[in-house]
């Protein structure tokens, strides 16, 4: 939204050379693009400039001649003259560096930052040759633990304010601040408090010295020993771009890559420190099969024989329809494609569901116009009707926080307060079911939403909806109905979906969900995961669990248990999950960083995964396991390398037409591409990422830093980003989904409707294998209105008993929450109590009674 009076470019001179700059941008950026690097510490391109370190002082022309000015802060103006290399500038640079070193310890040899340290590097390039400081330096106790993940060495701190600014402004978690004054200033938590932010690792990433270090990385490697593979995080479906760094066959850390269109260099701690579990003892690294009641390590050959025998037996005895594949949302596109082929072609079963969550179904996802993230952030209004974004798609929360500051208007639809509530201009306190019903039948609630998004007009043009499953206890139909009716009501609106499993959208695209074949091609409906589980409890079935654990991911625990007990289970996973004890065969799956391929994020953006190290033990990548099974069945599946499988996908499926595996990691498309590509010819030129080695120290490989962007491309890039308008998404294909009024009924006799949610650190087998992250999972709890606790004579934080409609009982800690609406109990999954037990498959609403015992 450019002001017509703002000129498109302004002209400045940098060291006598004329440079075109964007109005409002700081000198440091304009000069950088023209090839003049100005040293800096506090400046970070993704945060507000503060001009505190004074390293970037340059001479700037003004009414009273040239003066030293912070180039990170001062915006360019027409005709401005900038001098970056005069004696005066050099003296200022030497002076600032000398001052910074006055109290900075000279412990570079033992400092994690040594070798990738902006202070070290810039001292070498711009600093004084020798120290003139002979006095005693400032001393602090060091290091101190400011959270379980992050340690602080205050002696090394140069007070650049990056971490404090990040916590306050980017993450909205001001749990650290400067304390004290002058050269006694320190970064500090509240005394005995903790820096409890889901995003704390970013402060380590952006620290320009070794003041903030991450416990999982400390003393593990030297920067010059690190190799790097560019990749995409698979902790959720947001798809943050990141660098996997490794040394001597071991993954040592992840760093966020500054992708304009995705994560702006940020990561959440769950994604950033996921590598903790890779080398865990708890990894599944050998194939195992069950002999009588014991699991025994066997060769892949023997394991495959057992799997082949099962497939043949079940096909012969019960038909291919007795074989089902559950999961795969954590697999690569190539792995999913291979397994779908195996299931649907080789074996001949249609039973495949990657979506154990029962989220928004593919039928709705494919029939609504999909927004890109960039479109959502620039929308006239963004309607968020989803689970708490910070818990499910954490970095999306950061992008929304930023976008709201830049003018994005968010309207939230949620019964309970979430992290989005503080950002939203308005919150409609409605359940998803109530809104869906209202949109179908009209009425005041629908009008309220209409009024709230009036800026988008009658047709909803420029409005974007983020629809996701806000209550685990709800059936998927609620969300299908919500999105479908919203799309009918506002045909101009675009959609994003909050299904958060890493590659769930790739799985949908590749036919790993019921009713769909690869390439978003519809086919006859078939059973979904819940129905498969229900069947497995009653009849003989062979279940392939593809990196999935129905016990921790699906409700109705009793039913899931009896299904797993009854069925023959082949578990393909990197960790021994809760389903492992029920397995007949365990096949070790290569973990993240051990496998190449591609993944698809929630926009439909296909990006490359980096293979950094070899699979641990006997584990194999997903696509190879599918190929092994195919070979065992005497039906080799064709290509067995990711680039070949991808080429096959691009050749056979129109959805991927025009994509080339190698291109996806090129300078041309460093952040991948959203599928399907628009049919019109696209010419967007090279879009290498911004060049700022100080923004994320340690990211040094040339292919993701790239040369400076040509000015014209930078300006035009956002507009040229290929859209996601799917040719195969006519609104006429929107499913008609009806909602039972029971979904909004109010229970009698004091029973409360259960609203069940997840938190970021959810108890999974992978998290349990991560030494530090595993300490962050919270206990399961419920939140109830204060009156509810009073009525049963319980105090805040004491244990209560929940009784379901079918006699299930769960003892759980209850917290009092004034913000809760009447008639609702908010359950938050976690360690300990299993709240999933209370949810019965096939019910429209789950009610519980809160009792004292």
């Amino acid at each position, binding site marked *: 939204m450019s002001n017509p009076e703002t000129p498109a470019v302004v002209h400045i001179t940098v060291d006598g050379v004329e440079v075109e700059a964007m109005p409002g941008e700081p000198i440091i950026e304009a000069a950088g693009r023209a090839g003049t690097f100005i040293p800096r510490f506090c400046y970070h391109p993704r945060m507000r400039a*503060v*001009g*505190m*370190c*004074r*390293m970037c*002082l340059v001479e700037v022309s003004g009414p009273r001649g040239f*003066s*030293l000015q*912070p180039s990170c*802060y*001062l915006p360019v103006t027409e005709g401005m003259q900038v001098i970056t290399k005069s004696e*005066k500038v050099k*003296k*200022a640079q*030497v*002076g*600032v560096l*000398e*001052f*910074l070193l*006055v*109290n900075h310890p000279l412990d570079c040899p033992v400092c994690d930052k040594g070798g990738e340290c902006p202070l070290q590097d810039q001292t070498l390039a711009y600093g004084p040759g020798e120290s*003139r*400081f002979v*006095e005693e330096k*400032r001393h602090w106790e060091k290091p101190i633990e400011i959270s379980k993940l992050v340690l602080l060495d205050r002696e090394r701190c*140069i*007070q650049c304010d990056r971490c404090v600014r990040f916590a306050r402004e980017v993450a909205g978690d001001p749990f650290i*601040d*400067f304390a*004290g*004054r*002058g*050269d*006694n*200033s320190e970064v500090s938590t509240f005394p005995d408090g903790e820096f409890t932010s889901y995003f704390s690792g970013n402060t380590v990433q952006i620290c320009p010295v070794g003041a903030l270090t991450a416990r999982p990385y400390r003393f593990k490697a030297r920067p010059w020993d690190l190799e790097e593979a560019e990749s995409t995080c698979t902790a959720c479906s947001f798809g943050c771009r990141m660098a996997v760094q490794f040394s001597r066959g071991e993954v040592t850390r992840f760093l966020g890559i500054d992708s304009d269109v995705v994560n702006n260099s940020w990561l959440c701690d769950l994604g950033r420190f996921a590598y903790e579990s890779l080398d865990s003892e708890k990894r599944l690294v050998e194939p195992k099969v069950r002999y009588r009641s014991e699991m025994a390590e066997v060769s892949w050959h023997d394991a495959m024989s057992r799997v082949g025998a099962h497939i043949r037996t079940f096909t012969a005895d019960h038909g291919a329809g007795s074989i089902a594949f559950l999961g795969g949302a954590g697999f690569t596109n190539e792995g999913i494609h291979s397994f779908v082929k195996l299931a649907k072609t080789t074996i001949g079963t249609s039973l495949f569901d990657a979506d154990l969550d029962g989220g928004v179904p593919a039928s709705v996802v494919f029939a609504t116009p999909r927004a890109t993230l960039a479109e959502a952030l620039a929308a006239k209004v963004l309607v968020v009707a989803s689970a708490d974004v910070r818990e499910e798609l954490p970095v999306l929360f950061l992008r929304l926080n930023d976008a709201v500051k830049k003018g994005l208007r968010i309207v939230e639809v949620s019964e309970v307060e979430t992290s989005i509530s503080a950002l939203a201009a308005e919150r409609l306190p409605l359940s998803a079911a109530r809104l869906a019903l209202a949109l179908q039948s009209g009425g005041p609630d629908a009008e309220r939403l209409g009024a709230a998004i009036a800026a988008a007009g009658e047709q909803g043009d420029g409005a974007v909806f983020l629809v996701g499953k806000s209550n685990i206890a709800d059936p998927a139909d609620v969300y299908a109905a919500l999105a479908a009716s919203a799309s009918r009501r506002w045909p101009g609106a675009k959609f994003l979906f909050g299904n958060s499993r890493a590659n769930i959208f790739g799985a949908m695209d590749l036919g790993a969900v019921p009713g769909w074949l690869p390439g978003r091609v519809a086919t006859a409906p078939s059973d979904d995961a819940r129905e498969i589980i229900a069947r497995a409890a009653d009849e003989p079935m062979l279940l392939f669990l593809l990196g999935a654990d129905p016990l921790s991911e699906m409700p109705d625990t009793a039913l899931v248990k009896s299904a797993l007990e009854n069925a023959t289970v082949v578990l393909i996973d990197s960790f021994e999950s809760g389903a492992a004890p029920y397995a007949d065969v365990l096949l070790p799956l290569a973990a993240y960083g051990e496998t190449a391929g591609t993944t698809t994020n929630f926009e439909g953006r296909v990006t490359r995964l980096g293979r950094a190290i070899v699979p641990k033990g006997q584990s194999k990548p997903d696509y190879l396991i599918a190929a092994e099974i195919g070979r065992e069945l005497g039906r080799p599946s064709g290509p067995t390398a990711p680039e070949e499988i991808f080429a096959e996908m691009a050749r056979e499926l129109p959805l991927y037409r025009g994509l080339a595996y190698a291109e996806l990691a090129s300078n041309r498309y460093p952040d991948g591409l959203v599928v399907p590509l628009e049919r019109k010819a696209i010419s967007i030129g090279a879009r290498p990422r911004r060049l700022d080695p100080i923004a994320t120290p340690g990211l040094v490989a040339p292919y993701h830093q790239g040369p400076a962007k040509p000015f014209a491309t930078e300006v035009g890039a956002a507009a040229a980003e290929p859209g996601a308008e799917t040719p195969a998404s006519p609104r006429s294909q929107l499913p008609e989904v009806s909602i039972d009024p029971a979904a909004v009924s109010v229970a009698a006799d004091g029973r409360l409707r259960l609203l069940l949610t997840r938190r970021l650190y959810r108890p999974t087998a992978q998290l349990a294998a991560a030494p530090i992250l595993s300490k962050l999972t919270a206990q399961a709890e419920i939140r109830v209105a204060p009156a509810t606790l009073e009525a049963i004579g319980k105090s805040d934080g004491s244990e209560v008993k929940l009784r379901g409609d079918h006699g299930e009982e769960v003892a759980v800690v209850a917290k009092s929450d004034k913000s809760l609406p009447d008639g609702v109990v908010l359950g938050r999954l976690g360690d300990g109590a299993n709240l999933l037990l209370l949810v019965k498959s096939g019910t429209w609403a789950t009610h519980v009674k809160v009792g004292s015992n």
Partner: protein
Amino acid sequence: MTQTDPVPKIVTSRVGLEESWGIKTYLATGGYTALRKALTSMTPEQVADEVSKSNLLGRGGAGFEVGRKWSMLKPAPVRYLVINGDESEPATFKDHMLIENDPHQIVEGTLISAYAVGAARAFIFVRGEFALGLERLQAAVNEAYAHGAIGRNIFGSGFSVDLVVHPGAGAYICGEETALLESLEGKRGFPRIKPPYFPAVMGLYGEPTIVNNVESMSNIPWIVNNGGASFAALGVGRSTGTRIFALAGHVNRPGNYEVEMAKLSFRELVERPEYGGGMRLGRQVKAFIPGGVSAPWFGPDQLDMALSQDDVAKAGSMLGSGSIVMMDDHTCMVRAAWRITKFFWRESCGQCTPCREGSGWIEKMMQRIELGSGREADLDLLLDACDNIAPGLTWPPQQTTICVLGPSIPSSVASAIRMFRDEFLVHIKEGGCPYE
């Protein structure tokens, strides 16, 4: 030049009266007549016009014309007025006296100014350590409320405004106007980075804000009652009216003296019996600080300079906060400069590198020299470190820092080395202070 006879007491007329801080005394001595006059018989423009005519120079330190500052206020729906009573410049004690002895005069001046600039609310930020002053100022506000001078429809004029007395909590930097605003917003007192250069564009809560000094406000009632022209008739050139000089150090009668601007010389202020009464023990002047410890020092040869903002500026220093510190020939210049450096080190907010680290380093070097571990090379090192904070060591200074506290650090160190290099060398050669 001689002063007008008698010199009108514009701001200190009530100092010394019984209960000078109470409304009874204030009303008996013409209090609140100016506010009534302004609100009921003048437009806001007319008030601002009189203040412009008076050429009242801001009394906080920078000496910027009050009227001109008001005219720079960005027109916006919400505007604020903030009065700076955070007097912390060492050896400056005039605002302290005004707040304790004539708080109503400040309140009245503030209310008139709020009317002139159309402020939505006025805040008087008072240095937290002035506990008694805060009590009396708040009591004055309470009395003014009861008198109908604050709140709704003041004196039936249709003008409403509120005035909040806000206590600081001990930080010199909050005297810097943008740090003061941060502090008033409940934050750490970090000066804001410029541009915007003036709070008149972006101030309290991001709204256009006028920040004026307490003594400036104390002048406003007199200007309204007597007209800007009468004020401008006093003094010389741009230095109009009267001004309080806080005279401290080695004089017989340290104290606050309201004198006509630019009519007296430093020597007259120091020597006249009704003012400083001469140097203590009849000693000679070795050096003096003409305008607060941020100012470069003067020597005895500059004693005959007039107390004029422009003359002092031309000579390479400033009248600044109006504090004059006299040092006699028994004073150790190294120790004096060290103590001032120590002050800036303790008061540096820590936001930007040169001030945060430079102040501490320079203090350590000064301490070393005074205590006998100095090296001859330290003098050039000191000057170079100073130069890295205030490039060129010129006056008015250039700076590598965010705010002017940075270039205030070198003033005393560079003055002392420049004027008394030999004394430094004696410290270094003798391994200690010769005055001990």
